[in-house]
């Protein structure tokens, strides 16, 4: 109580000028890297494309109405499904993995966490290329399954390969936040539940899951958002058989030189993500209420 009061006093003592100054870097950062680019994207979405890309007048709503053609909505829907499945699988693997890590001794926890982030030390493109070698018809997976009479199989250049690639690429981002929230969990609660006769499933459902929900939701967002916009994995592992919204946006800028429509597509993805983040915020609020 005492310390909180004294901190409050000190904060008042800083004066409004210093406080205003201290927020300048953050404001500049937001302005330069967020407000201006976003403003450009919004403005471009309502203009006409120039011959070499770029934009020109007159202003138009064509790009926005074009978004609602079934072709583009289908690509968006299939991207959401791909990213959603990748997130779900990453959760199914990531949650037990995070739980297992918290059960290790402290020094082994460090080793395990380094192992989780180790793939990030290798270039993303190289890791994705490596999957091509594993998954192709003449690759290790297919040959291995053939040895036990289950192959050869077609995985590369399918939607399943894309989902696998997305799951693999982003699973560390699922493990880390869940691990952090499991760490904060008071293990006495689980012991008490056990002593009072709660079975493993009940302990999981009534204690573990609700108390780690903020970490789970954060992990899901960390996996879902980059998966949704990814265009490298669909291209390399999907072989162009499974277009995602990221490919579509990339192609508008780099192939059809249609920046306005590319901007409109970006806004569509942005709108979707804003909705999802708002849902997350309300879910997090609710789970805090349960936690308290």
């Amino acid at each position, binding site marked *: 109580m005492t310390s909180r009061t004294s901190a409050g006093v000190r904060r008042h003592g800083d004066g409004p000028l210093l406080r205003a100054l201290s927020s300048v870097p953050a404001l500049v950062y937001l302005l330069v890297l967020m407000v201006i680019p976003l403003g450009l994207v919004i403005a471009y979405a309502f203009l006409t494309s120039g011959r070499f890309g770029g934009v020109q007048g007159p202003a138009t709503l064509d790009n926005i109405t074009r978004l609602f053609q079934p072709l583009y909505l289908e690509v968006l829907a299939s991207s959401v499904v791909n990213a959603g499945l990748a997130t779900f699988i990453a959760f199914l693997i990531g949650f037990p993995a995070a739980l297992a890590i918290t059960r290790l001794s402290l020094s082994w926890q460090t080793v395990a966490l380094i192992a989780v982030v180790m793939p990030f030390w290798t270039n993303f493109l190289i890791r994705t290329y490596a999957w091509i070698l594993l998954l192709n018809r003449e690759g290790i997976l297919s040959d291995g399954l053939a040895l036990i009479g289950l192959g050869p199989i077609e995985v590369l250049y399918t939607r399943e390969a894309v989902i696998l690639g997305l799951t693999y690429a982003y699973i560390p981002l699922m493990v880390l936040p869940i691990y952090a929230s499991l760490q904060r969990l008071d293990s006495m609660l689980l012991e008490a539940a056990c002593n009072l006769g709660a079975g493993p499933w009940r302990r999981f459902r009534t204690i573990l899951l609700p108390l780690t929900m903020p970490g789970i939701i954060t992990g899901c967002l960390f996996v879902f958002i980059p998966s949704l916009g990814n265009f490298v994995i669909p291209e390399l592992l999907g072989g162009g*058989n499974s277009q995602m919204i990221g490919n579509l946006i990339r192609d508008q800028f780099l*192939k059809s*030189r249609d920046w306005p429509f590319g901007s409109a597509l970006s806004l569509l993805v942005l709108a979707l993500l804003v909705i999802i983040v708002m849902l997350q915020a309300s879910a997090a609020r609710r789970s805090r209420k349960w936690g308290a």
Partner: protein
Amino acid sequence: MATQRTRARRASVLGIAGAVCAVLLAACGGGSSGGDASPSPSLDPSADLSKQSIVVSNWDAYMDPDVALKFTDTTKANITVAKHATNEEIVGKLTAGGDPGIDVAFVSGQYAQALNEAGLLEPIDPRLVPNMANLYPESKNLSFDPGSTFSVPYAWGTTGICYREDLMAAAPTSWNDLLNPAPEYEKKTLMLATQPWLNLPAAKALGFSANTTDEGELEQIKQQLLKTKPTLLGFDDVTFYSRLAAGEVVMAVAWDGWCNYSGDPNVKFVVPSEGADLWADTMVVLKSSKNKEAAMAYINFMIGDEMQSWMTNNILYKSPNKTIAEKAAAELGADFPNIAMTPADLAKGESLIDLGAASKIYQQIATEVQAS
């Protein structure tokens, strides 16, 4: 072979990093600037090149790595080499408005045409590019720039089918062999995803121009591609030659030189009987260049024997330089049949031109086919 394998010229995936930068850099560009239409004062053939310096932008690994040293040795002019990953990236830079700081750019023919129409290119001064006389006349008369008035070809070629001779009962002769494959080859074929090469096989099989902008024809092309898609293993612009070498696929639509990168003698190249395209990668001088004499000297140097010999021996594309092309055909033609193609063979292909507004329809077809 390492240089060839890492070549990223049309490789869309390897271009991604560059592409991202391009988008970020170009974002502030906006608009298509008209360029300076006024004629520049005529060039001075006796200008002192040692006082001039130029910036050249080329695809990575598309020319002799020692080009800067050799060029300066020969002409005394200073040179800086910049890289771009795709045509779209360099065109974005050149059209962003203001002085792009680039004197000479390598772009494919149809992009040179578009840049010229925007008034951005300096006419080629034949007095300063005497090596033009050594180029095949056909290579100087491509439909995007008849007479090579604003662009000079660096390499040229065509598109066809790479196939595994040992894994197929008979060599493919028609685009239809790939578009409507025999059942045993289903799921063992690849196509290019980049336009206009995605459309090309269907366009030619249906008897249309490779540059068609007719809506009815484009619809028929799309229907054929939608029918072909379930029979494909996938679309691959980057690694198709290694898929062929691994035996995963038996046929792939391919730019001619790329079949050679497989390193497998069973991988052969054929231009189907319906014909194909004729592409050229060209060099252009920007009107905004302040050292145009050195820029012209650079182009002259690049179509000279030494640099053309490097290109055809390392990239395995055909040279428009007659002496070098004939020498390469004799030395390499047996191993790399595309190098042995004559200008008459090549000229049967239809040269690609800028599609203007229709490029959007082409891209829409690509999206529809890939999303189906």
